[in-house]
């Protein structure tokens, strides 16, 4: 992505290497942000192809397209690629581009480490995707990599473990960078409580990352030693416990869910006020709600494990704690609606995605609350109901917010307005096909269809066919996004420094496209 044209480079007397070496050696937060976004886009389409293969197999009962073993590899890798390859790096890309611009810093605090944290990702992705081609294929243990199934896998599992290690290191370095940048490099006058909400949500997310990525690394390392070095962490015959893996994994896994949604809340909290032309309602309560969600996320992990046979007291504790998360999440939704109330709204593509986000994400929130009720969870655990639930929060939540943010900041990044026609088409196709794909899955799950199966009983056939049609529609709709981005990169209407009438914040005080170096002298915030 040529976010910065050569003339500007020249204009700013930039003497770094050019061509490929520029991207490999860059320490510029905008270049690195672009690299992260490009990487995540590639991974998004890779994971999407896997998803469509899964849906093709599930179009009809019977085995037609893939065999069960490969099917399991696809569901596993789809999850890992989307979580670690698409969603997380995309948010880090946004953080790299926007946090320095929003707090008036000249770059990230540790510019060289920033380069390294990005360039760890492509080798990790190669290990992950490359594992399809080793003997035995990729790991087929599900993205949760539950032991002892993951101990049974072939060498694809080892490659995945190393990929997770590397991505974990990358995330931790990225998170440290974000924390230090936000705490130390804000422009004079920008107190924490004046900071844009996107920065707040990322600050809290970064702490979550630092806290839980090592836990995941520990869990997969224990699998590695169980596989190869004769330990028995998860093997009862050697004094271990398979359920221990699940406790450790979900101690990472639940905060991970919020790692993927809190920055989304941040993006939405920037966009709604802009297009409502009205300040964000309840700024302080938004900050407190974000922090509450993050803290609660550490004490709810076993709600993923209600069917493992927890004691009654444990079950009740985790049920109550999980239900409590509905309160701060509700506060956020109420605040967004209150921000829109009596605004003067317009509905450009970022706003469409933001409103779509609130509407559809909230459905995922409600099914989350329903899943929190242990007896109901016993019925829907490991069914398509859960698949529907987490795609409502991860696709309609995280992904839609990423689209909203991309359209919102593309003019700042490229200097051109994107095509509003393409953007709107992308939104309406995405939201329609998203619901056609995932809404029927609630019914499938309630009626008793387990997840992670390549073939199913006949009563599930109609909704599966519908979901597959929707999935292909959704997949194709993403090509519109690609077209819109490419078109915007290549040209288009010149973007003003502040292309959105209601936008506020330091990023809109610099020209569009943002020059290679910004805020070399810190602005003063009053």
């Amino acid at each position, binding site marked *: 992505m040529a976010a910065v044209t050569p003339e500007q480079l020249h204009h700013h007397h930039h003497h770094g290497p050019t061509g490929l070496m520029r991207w490999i050696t860059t320490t510029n937060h905008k270049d690195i942000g672009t690299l992260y976004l490009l990487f995540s886009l590639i991974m998004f389409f890779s994971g999407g192809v896997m998803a469509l293969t899964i849906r093709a197999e599930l179009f009809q*009962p*019977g*085995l037609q397209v893939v065999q*069960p*073993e490969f099917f*399991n590899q696809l569901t596993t890798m789809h999850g890992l690629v989307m979580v670690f390859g698409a969603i997380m790096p995309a948010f880090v890309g946004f953080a790299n581009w926007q946090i320095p611009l929003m707090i008036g810093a000249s770059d990230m605090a540790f510019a060289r480490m920033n380069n390294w944290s990005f360039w760890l990702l492509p080798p990790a992705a190669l290990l992950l995707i490359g594992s399809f081609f080793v*003997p*035995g*294929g990729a790991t*087929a243990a599900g993205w949760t990599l539950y032991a*002892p*199934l993951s*101990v*049974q896998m*072939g060498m694809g599992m080892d490659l995945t473990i190393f990929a997770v290690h590397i991505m974990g290191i990358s995330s931790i370095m990225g998170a440290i960078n974000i924390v230090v940048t936000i705490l130390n490099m804000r422009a004079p006058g920008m107190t924490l409580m004046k900071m844009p909400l996107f920065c707040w949500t990322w600050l809290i997310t970064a702490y979550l990352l630092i806290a839980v990525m090592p836990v995941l690394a520990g869990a997969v390392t224990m699998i590695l030693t*169980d*596989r190869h070095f004769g330990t028995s962490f998860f*093997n*009862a015959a050697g004094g271990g*416990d*398979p*359920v221990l893996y699940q406790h450790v994994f979900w101690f990472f896994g639940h905060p991970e869910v919020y790692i993927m949604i809190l920055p989304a809340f941040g993006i939405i909290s920037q966009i709604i006020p802009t297009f409502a032309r*009205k*300040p964000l*309602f*309840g700024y302080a309560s938004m900050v407190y709600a974000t922090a509450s969600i993050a803290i609660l996320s550490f004490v709810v992990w076993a709600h993923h494990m209600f*069917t*493992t*046979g927890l004691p*009654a007291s444990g079950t009740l504790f985790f*049920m109550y704690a999980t239900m409590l998360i*509905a*309160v701060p999440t509700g*506060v956020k939704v*109420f605040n967004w609606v*209150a921000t*829109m*109330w*009596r*605004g*003067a*709204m317009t*509905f450009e593509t970022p706003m469409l995605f933001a*409103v779509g986000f609130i*509407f559809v994400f*909230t459905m995922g929130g*409600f099914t989350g609350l*329903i899943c929190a*009720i*242990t007896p*109901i969870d*016993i*019925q829907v655990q*490991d069914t398509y109901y859960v698949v529907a639930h987490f795609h409502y929060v991860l696709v309609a939540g995280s992904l839609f917010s990423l689209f909203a943010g991309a359209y919102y900041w593309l003019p700042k990044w490229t200097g051109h307005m994107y095509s509003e026609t393409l953007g709107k088409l992308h939104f309406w196709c995405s939201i329609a096909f998203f619901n056609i794909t995932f809404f029927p899955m609630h*019914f499938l799950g309630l*009626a*008793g269809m387990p997840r*992670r199966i390549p073939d199913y*009983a006949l009563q599930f056939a*109609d909704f599966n066919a519908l979901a597959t049609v929707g999935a292909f529609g959704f997949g194709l709709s993403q090509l519109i996004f690609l077209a819109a981005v490419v078109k915007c990169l290549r040209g288009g209407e010149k973007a003003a420094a502040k292309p959105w009438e209601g936008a506020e914040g330091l990023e809109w005080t610099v020209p569009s496209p943002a020059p290679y170096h910004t805020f070399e002298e810190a602005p003063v915030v009053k």
Partner: protein
Amino acid sequence: MGFTVRRAVAWGVGAMAAPAFAVEQSRINLQAPVTRIAEQIYDMHTLMLVICLVIFLGVFGVMFWAVFHHRKSKGAVAAHFHENTTVEILWTVVPVFILLGMAYPATKTVLAMKDTSNPDITIKATGYQWKWGYDYIKGEGEGIQFFSSLATPQNQIGGQAAKGDHYLLEVDKPLVVPVGKKIRILTTANDVIHSWWVPAFGVKQDAIPGFIRDTHFRADKEGVYRGNCAELCGKDHGFMPIEVHVVGADKYAAWVAGEQAAKAATAEDPGKVWDLAALKERGARVFAANCVACHQADGKGLPGVFPPLDGSKVVQGPKADQIATVLNGRPGTAMAAFGKQLSDTDLAAVITYTRNAWGNATGEAIQPAEVAAGRKG
């Protein structure tokens, strides 16, 4: 609780959500419950759905009102308010009370689900890759043991034959339990984690290798109830269903008597010497039931995942090594320890079969006595 919820539901959505809605095999809702607990879950889900729907309509009624009326194109001018302490406290506190209302019935059901005391019959369900094993441990039918595997033929899965009514939800030998009795299910597993799930009973309990967990149900209605393994357990996770026949007390007693008589009749003389042809013929059946999923009918396995037997060094090598492998399994791989699952005669037969099938031609017949010796060694 059932009573109050049903009244609340009737008040909320009229006749729609009453049990009449829970017709057999609903495609859009939880399956028709046949235990008290499944019924409570069903009602709780309906109640939750109604509460969520009301809140949803409220919040998005407001949002879409704003979306359609507070538009710049309609001449709306933005207000400037950005906080209101009263409203903010209210929408924090009110949800807490709604949640308390939800937690109360859920807590009662959780406690009922966890109460596995005083069962009439105790059955151990063991998850294997990829079938279920049942042991009647205590109560009427004590001592009955059998395996329960998918009965759907491969040609239906592959699309060469029309799919039957209970496609993928049928087994060769279902679990049989009496109606109205408290059945305690102990779950465990032989290899990886499985999960024993029968939706109509409101029961789902993970089966964890090396550990025993328990759950229970008391079915109020005779009938056939079907479920699946609910925890990803490898290649054939989607192909190890659960089928439970709930029958009247008389029929159950007759079934138990039949099982016990059959067990006595098939008791085999472990010292019997078999000829090669008889072993191979029996071994082919044992192979088809236990080994074919991984090692495949052509003995070639799945490259990189499951090793071939055709031309294998173990199969063509010393008998004692192969007997030990089949008896004890290969820790850390999908190769199970079949010593606990199969009789000496079946093991002798299947080992003989593999040593004389495909390209393997050792010409050796393994006798049950050799397997018995392998168990001691």
